[in-house]
C-alpha cells in the first residue's frame, strides 16, 4: 500500500523463537528450481503503480518510492523476513544499554559510498543528524524512529554511539529500515528538496543513473559491492546490471506489458490480472504486510461507539473469512489479531475474532440495544448507527466495507460508508472528525501499536488514559529483551481489543507480478522489494 514498514546477535535467536513470524510470503520469489544457477547481467524493467515521490530513502514513505530508494542505500542492520530477527549489515555487531537509551554500533571496515568516500562513524552521525534536520514534515517515518534523539558520538573511526533521552527499544528494528539507511556526506549536506532529485549517494548495491520525476528512474549495479546483508541470498555484487523503473499507473497496461514482454516485473497485480500473467508463464508473488491489519479505529467519544459493550460486540460480528474469499482472493489473509500475522510479537487472537453473530447479538441485547421497527437496534431513542471514514488508498476498501455493512446489518447495526479523498482523509484524521476510521499501517515491529494507539501516538480512537495499556506501551519501548518485550506487546494487543479500540478486518498483501524469466524478486521483512538477488534467466 501507500504506507508503510532488535539487538545483540545472541538475542536474535530468542527473538526469533518468541516473535512467531508467520511465513512471510506464500511464494516469495522462488525460482522454481528449474531456472538453474543465477546468471549475472541484464536489465530488469519494472512497472511501478505510482510515481515515487522523492529519491531520498530518508524521505521515502510510499511503497513505490521505497522499492526504488531501498536499492541504493544500506542500513546499519537488516531484518530477516522469515524470523523477524535483526541481523548485521553495515554494523557487524551492536550493544544496547539496559535502559534502551544508548545504542553502540561496530561498523564493517572497507565499506565505501558510491562517490568513493568511506563509511565511518561520522557517516552514521551525519546521517541521523541530517534526518532530524529534515524534520517530521519531510521525513515522517525516519523522524518518528528518532524520537528523543540526543545525538551520535563517533567513539572511534568505526564505532558509533547513538543516544536517546528516553528508552527507545524500537530503534534497533528502525535501523534496518531504508528510512534510516546510511548516506554519504554529499547527500546529508543537501537541503530536503535537493535530496529528491535522484543524486543521492549511498553504499547500496545499486546507484542512481537517472531520475525523471513522475516518470522513471534508472539504477545501475555498484561494481565492487561486497558488503551485502547476511539476509541476502548471495554475496558480492548484485546480479542485475541495471533496473529501469517506469511509472505505469493503469493496472491493465502494467499487466498487458508484463504479459507481452515489455516489462519483467510489476507492482500491484490485481487478483483479476493473475490469469493473464500466469497464462504467459509469469507468476504473482505475494506476501502479507506486517504492522496493523486493516480495520476500524473506533472513535470512543462519538455516538453509540461511546458504549464499550457495543464496540466489544462488533468483534465477533464480522465474517472475516467471507470478506477475503468474496472480495480479495487467495493471496490475502483475514485479520486474526490487533497486529498482522507477519509482525514480530504478533499474538493470535483468532478465537476472540471468530465469527459468531449470535454472541454479538446477545451482547447487544444485554447492553440494552434492542432491534427497532426497521431492524436497526436502538437504546433510549439512539439508533445503533455509525459511519466509517475511509479513502481508496487500497483498491479493495470499498468492496470490503460494503460487505461489512451487510454483515453488520444482519445483527441490527447500521454502518454508513463515508468515502473521502486522500487529502480529506488526512484532514479528518488530524481533527478526529469521524465515528470510525478505516486503515492500516505497515511496520515489521510491534511498536506500530504505540504509533497507532498510544495517547501520544495517532490515537484515532480518541481515547483517554487507560493505565494498563499506557504502561505496557511505555514499557515495551524500554525493554531490550525480545521475550519480555513480546510479552508486553501481547498485553497491548489484548487491551486494544478489550477496550474496543480496534475492529480488525483483513491483512494487506503485496502482489507483485513477475514474468517467467524473472527470478528471485524478494520481499524484505516489511514486505518491500529487494532486488539484490534478482536475476533474469535466458536473457
Amino acid at each position, binding site marked *: 500500500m501507500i504506507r508503510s514498514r532488535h539487538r545483540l546477535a545472541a538475542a536474535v535467536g530468542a527473538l526469533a523463537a518468541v516473535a512467531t513470524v508467520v511465513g512471510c510470503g506464500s511464494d516469495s520469489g522462488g525460482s522454481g528450481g528449474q531456472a538453474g544457477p543465477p546468471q549475472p547481467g541484464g536489465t530488469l524493467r519494472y512497472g511501478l503503480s505510482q510515481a515515487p515521490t522523492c529519491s531520498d530513502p530518508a524521505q521515502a514513505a510510499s511503497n513505490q518510492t521505497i522499492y526504488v530508494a531501498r536499492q541504493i542505500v544500506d542500513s546499519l542492520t537488516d531484518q530477516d523476513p522469515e524470523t523477524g530477527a535483526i541481523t548485521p549489515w553495515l554494523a557487524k555487531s551492536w550493544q544496547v544499554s539496559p535502559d534502551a537509551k544508548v545504542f553502540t554500533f561496530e561498523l564493517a571496515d572497507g565499506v565505501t559510498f558510491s562517490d568513493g568516500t568511506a563509511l565511518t562513524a561520522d557517516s552514521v552521525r551525519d546521517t541521523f543528524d541530517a534526518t532530524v534536520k529534515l524534520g517530521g514534515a519531510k521525513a515522517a517515518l525516519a523522524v518518528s524512529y528518532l524520537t528523543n534523539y540526543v545525538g551520535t558520538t563517533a567513539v572511534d573511526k568505526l564505532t558509533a554511539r547513538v543516544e536517546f533521552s528516553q528508552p527507545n527499544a524500537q530503534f534497533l528494528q528502525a535501523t534496518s529500515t531504508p528510512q534510516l539507511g546510511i548516506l554519504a556526506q554529499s547527500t546529508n549536506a543537501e537541503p530536503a528538496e535537493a535530496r529528491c532529485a535522484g543524486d543521492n549517494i549511498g553504499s547500496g548495491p545499486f546507484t542512481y543513473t537517472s531520475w525523471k520525476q*513522475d516518470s522513471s528512474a534508472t539504477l545501475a549495479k555498484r561494481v565492487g559491492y561486497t558488503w551485502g546483508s547476511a539476509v541476502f541470498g548471495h554475496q558480492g555484487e548484485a546480479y542485475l546490471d541495471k533496473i529501469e523503473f517506469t511509472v505505469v499507473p493503469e493496472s491493465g*497496461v502494467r499487466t*498487458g506489458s508484463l504479459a507481452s514482454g515489455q516489462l519483467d516485473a510489476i507492482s500491484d497485480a490485481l487478483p483479476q490480472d493473475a490469469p493473464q500473467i500466469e497464462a504467459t508463464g509469469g507468476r504473482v508473488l505475494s506476501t502479507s504486510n506486517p504492522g496493523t491489519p486493516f480495520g476500524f479505529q473506533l472513535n470512543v467519544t462519538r455516538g453509540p461507539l461511546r458504549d464499550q459493550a457495543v464496540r466489544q460486540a462488533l468483534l465477533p460480528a464480522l465474517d472475516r473469512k467471507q470478506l477475503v474469499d468474496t472480495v480479495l482472493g487467495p493471496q490475502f489473509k483475514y485479520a486474526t489479531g490487533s497486529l498482522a500475522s507477519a509482525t514480530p510479537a504478533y499474538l493470535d487472537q483468532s478465537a476472540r475474532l471468530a465469527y459468531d453473530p449470535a454472541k454479538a447479538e446477545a451482547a447487544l441485547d444485554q447492553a440494552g440495544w434492542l432491534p427497532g421497527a426497521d431492524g436497526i437496534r436502538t437504546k433510549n431513542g439512539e439508533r445503533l448507527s455509525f459511519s466509517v471514514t475511509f479513502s481508496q488508498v487500497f483498491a479493495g476498501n470499498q468492496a470490503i466495507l460494503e460487505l461489512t455493512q451487510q454483515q453488520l446489518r444482519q445483527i441490527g447495526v447500521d454502518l454508513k460508508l463515508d468515502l473521502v479523498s*486522500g487529502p480529506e482523509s488526512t*484532514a479528518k484524521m488530524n481533527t478526529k472528525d469521524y465515528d470510525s476510521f478505516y486503515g492500516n499501517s505497515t511496520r515489521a515491529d510491534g511498536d506500530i501499536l504505540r504509533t497507532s494507539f498510544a495517547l501520544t501516538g495517532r490515537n484515532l480512537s480518541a481515547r483517554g488514559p487507560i493505565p494498563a495499556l499506557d504502561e505496557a506501551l511505555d514499557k515495551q519501548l524500554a525493554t531490550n529483551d525480545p521475550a519480555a518485550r513480546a510479552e508486553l506487546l501481547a498485553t497491548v494487543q489484548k487491551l486494544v481489543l478489550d477496550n474496543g479500540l480496534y475492529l480488525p478486518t483483513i491483512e494487506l498483501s503485496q502482489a507483485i507480478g513477475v514474468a517467467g524469466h524473472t527470478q528471485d524478486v524478494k520481499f524484505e521483512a516489511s514486505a518491500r522489494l529487494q532486488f539484490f538477488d534478482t536475476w533474469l534467466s535466458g536473457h
Partner: protein
Amino acid sequence: MVGYVGSRVLQAIWVLWAAFTISFLVLYALPSDPVSMAADGAGLGTPVDKAAVAQMQARYGLDKPLWEQYLTALGNALTGDLGRSINTGQPVTEAIGDAVPPTVGLAALALLLAVIGGTILAFAATYTQRPWLRNTLSAAPPLGVSVPTFWTGLLLLQLFSFRLHWFPAFGGTGLRGTLLPALTLALPIGAVLAQVLAAGLEQTWRQPFTDVALAKGASRWWVQRRHIARLASVPAFTIAGVLVGTMLAGSVVVESVFARAGVGRLTQTSVLNQDIPVVQGVVLLSALIFVGVNLAVDLLYPLLDPRITGTRRTRSARTRVDSTASGVTSVATTSTDAAKAARDA
C-alpha cells in the same frame, strides 16, 4: 487594428488574473492543509509532528494571513516564480517546464491526425450521394465523441502493443511512442471537427452558387475543393478553443493510460496530492493556453474572413469599402464565389 489587438491583449491579461485569483481562493478554501498531508507521509499511522508542520508552513508561507499569501504569490507569479511543489520540492516552473514538451508533442500529433481524419470524414460524408454511405459516415462523429478515451486507449494497446508488438505500451517517445496515445486523443477531437465541418459543408452545398458552378459544368469534387471547403472551414476554426480544452482534459486520461509524462499526469498527481502550488501552476498554464489560442484565433480571423474585423471597425470608411469588396455580407461572398465559380469553370 491596434485598438482591436490592444483590447484583446487586455482581455487576455484580465482572464489570467481572474484564473489565478479564483484558483487561489478555491484551493485555499479546501478543507485540508497540504502541509499536514505531506507531513503525514501518506497516512502511515505516525502522528503528525506539529512543530514540523509549523516549520514547513512557515517555509511555504502558509502561516501568513490569506491576503498576504495572495499578494506574495501574485507578485512572485508576475516575476515567473510559481513556488515549489510541496510533495517533491521541485520548483513548479521546472515541473511544468518538464511536462509541457511531451504534451505539446502529443497534442500536436493528435491535432494533425484529428484534422486529417475529421476532414476526410466530413468531406466523404457530404460529398457522397449514396444515402446509406452518407448516413453511416454521419453517424461516426457522435460515436467518436461518446467513446471513452480511456477505453479507446486500452483497446489500441491491447491490439497494437500487447498482441502485435508494434508500439511500446508505456512511456513512449518519438513518433512510434506517440502514435497510439495521439490516435486516442485525436478520436474525440477529430469527431468534433468532423461534425462541425460536415455541418458547414452541408450548409454551403445548399447555397445557390454551387448550382451555378455545377451548371457551368464543374465537377462536384472541384466545387467542394475550391469553394465549399474554404467557407466551411471557418466554423471549424472557431472551435479551436474548445478543442484545446478537450485536448487538455483528454491528456489527463491518455497520459495515465499510456504512462507518459506530461501536463495531464502532472495535473492528476498534483490534484490527488493537493499540491497547491503545482495545481495553481497548471491552472495558470491552462488559462494561458486558452487565452493564447483564443487570441490567436481572434487575430487570425481577419485573415480568413475580413468581415469579422470589418464589423468592429467604424473609424475608417476606406477599410470598410475594402472589406466590402472582398465580401462583407453573406450574399456578397456567395455572389463573388459564384462569379468566381462561373469564371473558373
